[in-house]
């Protein structure tokens, strides 16, 4: 049976339909989850999509973190059970929820940046990147105003040491992200936060490439294999 993957819609989510489309193309069944329902409907994994939840007025992701659905997602994700991919605003929500360390701050250019971005895969030991190979370069859109990843040096060192930097901007970070970090994972490898948008690179017609599909097909392969811990060590 095809995997059922939830896509959460917060007020102000924008890329939820795109994430659902990407999952469908990858062969999963997207399940729409509403921020106000504390109910995961038994999904096998969750995508927190991009957008401007609550207008991002206070701080990106700061208000969405407290949505009822997050009260279900956070414990399941923290325990390593539930694979969660946070894209852009979703990444910000994961940081605000302390599922991932660090924070995302204003681009160093102070402008919103929409561009096709080359990334280098740094870790395949996650639920979402097992199908790539380390060192592979992929081209997917980056579109954000607050995409500059920051954390204190100790945290950064730990992330590096534990192999938890998942993607880096090839060349250099266009937004000022520390150590060119574009995406990271938690200690179990089930939670991944990524600033660029793989769901916008799943069809040759509408994306700069189809390189983003790998996130979603990786998840399906991972779910087919069994529990997260197994792949995390096998990766």
């Amino acid at each position, binding site marked *: 049976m095809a995997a059922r993957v939830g896509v959460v819609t917060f007020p102000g989510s924008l890329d939820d339909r795109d994430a659902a489309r990407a999952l469908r193309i990858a062969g999963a069944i997207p399940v729409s989850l509403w921020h106000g329902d504390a109910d995961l409907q038994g999904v096998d994994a969750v995508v927190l999509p991009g957008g401007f939840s*609550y*207008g991002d*007025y*206070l701080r990106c992701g700061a*208000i969405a973190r*407290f949505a009822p659905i997050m009260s279900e997602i956070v414990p399941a994700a923290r325990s390593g059970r539930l694979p969660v991919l946070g894209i852009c605003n979703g990444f910000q929500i994961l940081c605000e929820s302390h599922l991932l360390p660090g924070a995302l701050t204003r681009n160093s250019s102070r402008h919103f940046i929409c561009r096709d971005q080359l990334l280098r895969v740094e870790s395949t030991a996650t639920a979402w990147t097992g199908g790539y190979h380390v060192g592979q370069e992929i081209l997917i859109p980056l579109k954000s105003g607050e995409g500059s990843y920051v954390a204190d040096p100790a945290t950064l060192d730990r992330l590096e040491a534990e192999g938890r930097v998942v993607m880096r901007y090839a060349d250099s970070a266009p937004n000022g992200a520390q150590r060119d970090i574009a995406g990271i994972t938690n200690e179990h490898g089930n939670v991944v936060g990524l600033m660029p948008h793989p769901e916008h690179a799943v069809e040759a017609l509408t994306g700069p490439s189809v390189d983003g599909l790998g996130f979603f097909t990786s998840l399906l392969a991972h779910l087919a294999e069994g529990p997260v811990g197994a792949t995390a060590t096998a990766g």
Partner: protein
Amino acid sequence: MARVVVDVMLKPEILDPQGQAIVGACGRLGFEGIAQVRQGKRFEVQVDGEVDDAKLADVRRLAETLLANPVIEDFELRVE
């Protein structure tokens, strides 16, 4: 080095969507008795040397032209 703080707030008649979003969140998070929140900007301006009248006038001009948008915002200035 001395510091001048410039507080910039939206004029009271101007819509403040940010403040509204926060009040909404307060309600959902169970913070009672929060009647209104307005969000503005705070600038900490470090000036070289003492803050004399001329410096202060400079910072005021800076606030008017750069830090605040007088069409929609008011500002206040104080030496700290």
